[in-house]
Each structure stands twice: as C-alpha cells, then as structure tokens.
C-alpha cells in the first residue's frame, strides 16, 4: 500500500544517512579502475569474506574489460576519429554498455546477497568511481527502535 511505499522511500533516504563502509580504489595497476579486495574489518560479522571478494573481483573484471585497449576499442577509436568524433553523439560506447551491465550485476547482487544481510551496495559510478560503498540498512531500524523505546519511557507506556 501507499504507506509502505512512503516508508520505504524514507528508508532509502535514511539509508543514505546510515553508516557506510567504503572500499577505496587500488592504483597499483596504474590508473585503470580497480578496487581493493582487502576485506574491511567492519564487515566482518555481516558477510562472508569469500562473497565479498567475489563481488569486488567481478566488478574489477568488468571495469578491466571496459578499459581494455584492444581490437574493439581501437576500431571504435579510429572510426570516431575519422568521423570527427560525431559518432559519440549517436552511438553508445562500449564503456557505457559495460556500465549498464555493471549496474544490473550490482542490483542482482544486492537482491540476492546483500539485502538479506542488511547491506546495500552502491554503484561506484554514483561516487565518481572512487569507492564502492556498503551502506548498513539495519542501522535505520536500530535507530528507529531506539527512538521508540525512548518515547515509551518518556510517556511511561
């Protein structure tokens, strides 16, 4: 019903204020987009290390594929140059196609793995490709619960 939806909107907004864990970029391979696979301590009790590593490694794979300089990217680049880069206005680049795949993957991971554990994975593109962030959605419920409890004590219910 509408009530639930409105509450969920609040939840989404509140999730953005909840505590977050940020996975930073790994620059050891030059400037290509890659995230650190080191398991953060804050997630220790929330998710299995192997699942986390698999998610980050798959993301790194996707980004590596998008930024790979090889046959197809040369073709795209040369064709673009020959047409004075006008085709960038008409056509979706390979990078953009892979970014769409990445958002579908993240959505799927959130549905299957992270939401049941009370975490929300955000797409790095929303953060300027700087971080992968895990938001703790359970904080919301905990703070709501604490507030209700306080109200109960105030009104001596």
């Amino acid at each position: 019903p509408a009530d639930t939806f409105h509450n969920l909107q609040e939840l989404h907004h509140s999730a953005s204020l909840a505590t977050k864990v940020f996975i930073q970029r790994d620059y050891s391979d030059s400037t290509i987009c890659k995230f650190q696979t080191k398991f953060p301590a804050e997630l220790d009790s929330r998710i299995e290390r192997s699942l986390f590593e698999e998610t980050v490694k798959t993301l790194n794979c996707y980004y590596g594929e998008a930024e790979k300089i090889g046959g197809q990217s040369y073709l795209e680049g040369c064709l673009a140059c020959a047409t004075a880069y006008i085709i960038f206005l008409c056509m979706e680049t390979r990078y953009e196609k892979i970014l769409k795949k990445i958002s579908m993957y993240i959505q799927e991971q959130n549905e299957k793995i992270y939401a049941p554990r009370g975490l929300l994975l955000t797409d790095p593109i929303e953060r300027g490709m700087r971080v992968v962030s895990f938001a703790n959605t359970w904080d919301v419920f905990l703070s709501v619960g604490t507030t209700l409890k306080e109200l109960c004590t105030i009104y001596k219910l």
Partner: protein
Amino acid sequence: MKNHEYQQIDPQALVTPTPTPPPRPLPEHKPRRARRRWEVFPGKNRFCCDGRMIAARQSGVLPLTLGLILLTSGLFFIFDCPFLVKHLTSCIPAIGGVLFVFVIISLLQTSFTDPGILPRATPEEAADIEKQIDNPTGSSSSYRPPPRTKEVVINQQVVKLKYCFTCKIFRPPRTSHCSLCDNCVERFDHHCPWVGNCVGKRNYRFFYTFIISLSFLTAFIFGCVTTHLTLRSQGGNGLVFALQASPASALELVVCFFSVWSILGLSGFHTYLVATNLTTNEDIKGSWSGKSGNEDVGNPYSYNSIIKNCCSVLCGPMPPSLIDRRGFVPSDDSVQTSPVEIELPAAKNDINMCTQGTKGLLETASRSPLLTSSCPQAKPQAVLEPLPEIVPEPPKTPHKHHSHHRSKAKQSAHHTPKTSNSSPRPYHSHSSRRKDSKNRDPKFSSLR
C-alpha cells in the same frame, strides 16, 4: 549548430553557482520546481542546453579563436579559392573544406566536453577519509606530513597521491585540481584559454585532433595563399600588384604566417607527449625526468612502445562523464541547498533505473523474514519517526594549499625555445595564437 546555441545562452543565468529562482513567478506555498544537478554544481563551470554541454566559467579567448579561424577560412574560400580553382584544381576548396570542418568540430567538442571532472566527495566519504588520516596506523611514517599525501606503488614506482582540500578526496594518479574551474580533473593536461576549458582525460583526443587539423589547415591556407599571390604576380606584374588585386590574401598571409609556427610547435610538443604518454602538467613539473637525480625514475604509465602509447591515449575507450548534469536534485527539505552535501547519483539516464532498483530491493528486503524477525520493535509498516538529521556541517576550509607543487618558474624555461616569449596578455601578440596555452596555464592553474 552548437555555435549558434552557445551564443543564445544568457550568461547571467548560468554564471552563479547558487540556484537562482525560476524566471516564471511561483506562489510561495507551491513546492519549488525540481532543479537539475547542473544548477547546483559546485565547480566554476558554465552549462548550456540545460546541462547537455559544459564549459569553463571564463570562456577565455574562445570567441577570439573561433573568430580568427572563421575569418581566415572565410576569406580563403571567398577570395582565394575562385582564383585557384580556375588556375589549378578544384580539389583545393574540397580539401580546405574538410580540414575546416574537422577544425571547427574538434574545437567545439574540446570546449564543450566534460574533461574528466571528478565529483566532490559526499560528506560520508569525506568523514571516512578524515578518520583514516587521523588514524596513525594509516600513515607509513611516524610523523604526519603537513600536506596530506598517500603513497601508492605503480609499476614498481612510488607515486604520491595528494589530498585535495576543496574536493575532499585523495586525488587519483595524474589528477590535478584546476583553480580556474575549481574542479579536480582526471589526467589533467592543462587549462587552455584558447579553447575555454580544461584539457583532461575525456577531451584530450579532441584537443589533439584540433591542433593537428589546425596545423594542417593553417599550413594549407598559407601554402595556397602564397601560390595564389605568386601566380598573380607572375607575368611581370609584381607582388604589390598581386596584393592590391587581392588584399584579403595579405591579411590571411599575416595571420597564417605568425600562427603556423606556434601551432606546429604545439602539435609537435603534444605528439611527443602522446608518444611518451605524458601530460603537459607532468612534463612541466618534471615528475618523471629524474629531477631529483634519481636515475630509476621513469614514467610508470608509459607502455614503453610509441605505438601502444599513441593508441592508448588517442584510440582508447571513451570513459563516461562522472558528473551528473541533467539529473534532478532531490526536493526533500532535509537535503540542503549547500552543494557539498548533495550526492551525485548515476550518470545520465541511469538515475531512474538505479532509484527504482533500490526501491525494489528494499521492498524485497522488508518482506524478507530474516529482517522482520530480527527487529521485533521496528516493523517496516509502522510509522517511522523522522530520524534525527545527520547532516554534518561541511567545514569551510579556506586553505587551498596547492602552491607546494606549482609555479616553478624555472621549469617553464625549457619551453621557451619551442615557443616564443610568454606574454600574459592573450590579445597582445599576433605572433602566436597558442603559445601561452601550455606555458602559462599549468603554472597558474592551481595557484591558490
């Protein structure tokens, strides 16, 4: 087409970074119309076509550049081409036309493309980074160095990443903060006033195409005009007669003669940069030339193969714009108008997909039995109390300490043989249209 649209924009409406009230009068009790992200963008940029195009706030001498190119080419097509077509071949206007189109298109694309601006950190990210900096286990040395830096190893070489106080992020490698545009730009090359924009990762190939095609165009026009005047002055008529017969050619000759050297020089310089995978910024600072006497220093980003370097810089994949210009600012009251706090969601059209996706998954999450059973006090259907506003006050950091790695006057000295004496006034010398663009700007670009 783009030129026409650019001129239609009212500069007053776009210059202010704070959101301006909409032009049509709205009664006060009505909610404000949804604003697009570009209207609250914190950097000093100018947006056209409702956020579809981006340029620096100061357009620099872009009108002059465009004007000169249009004027010279126009005069060429009107006055020189008819004579040359009659006496030589009709390929001349065809070649000239192709070059002219390339020049104009690549110039407009360089000017109006996002150079690779990095969006500023959200408050949570900034807080997370601050925590890491203050935590002594994070730093490698026993004392905290005054400018915040982080070291990474790239291709067996140590690279220092600096913290940007304005954008509140550790800058990725090769990223630099442009003080003219007040943005961090990836693979920052330089801020070019002739083009009216920064040159960075996303528009470097357009810039390179522009200067190469401009070199060809200038050389071509110069050659054709010389041929024209030579042909006219044959038969005992003399050069003066030729100039009198075609005065426009004299103007073209002067403009082309004085600009061809600097443009050719610039093209040569940038070809060298492309072949060695360097940026103007790094070259001027001497980051990899072993200035400290360390022989092991080399460019860690170079593939050590000219062809591979060229291909990766010019033909590599086109990264997307990381700033969302046309998305809407969420209109809830808790999101204040202070630009630092507004989160930038997914680029372009993906925002709707992402929001719906997240709403959908939260619905799924709320229906999951695990969630409801573990939190008996808080049922999702219960009325949620408005949560306490956790909106951290962005600290107004006035310090922009970028001068520690800039404005080394001696480092620009080695460029003077290539280009003429750098003069701060762009209108001053007609002798080189582009000489200052690479000398001056990296020096001044972060002087804050």
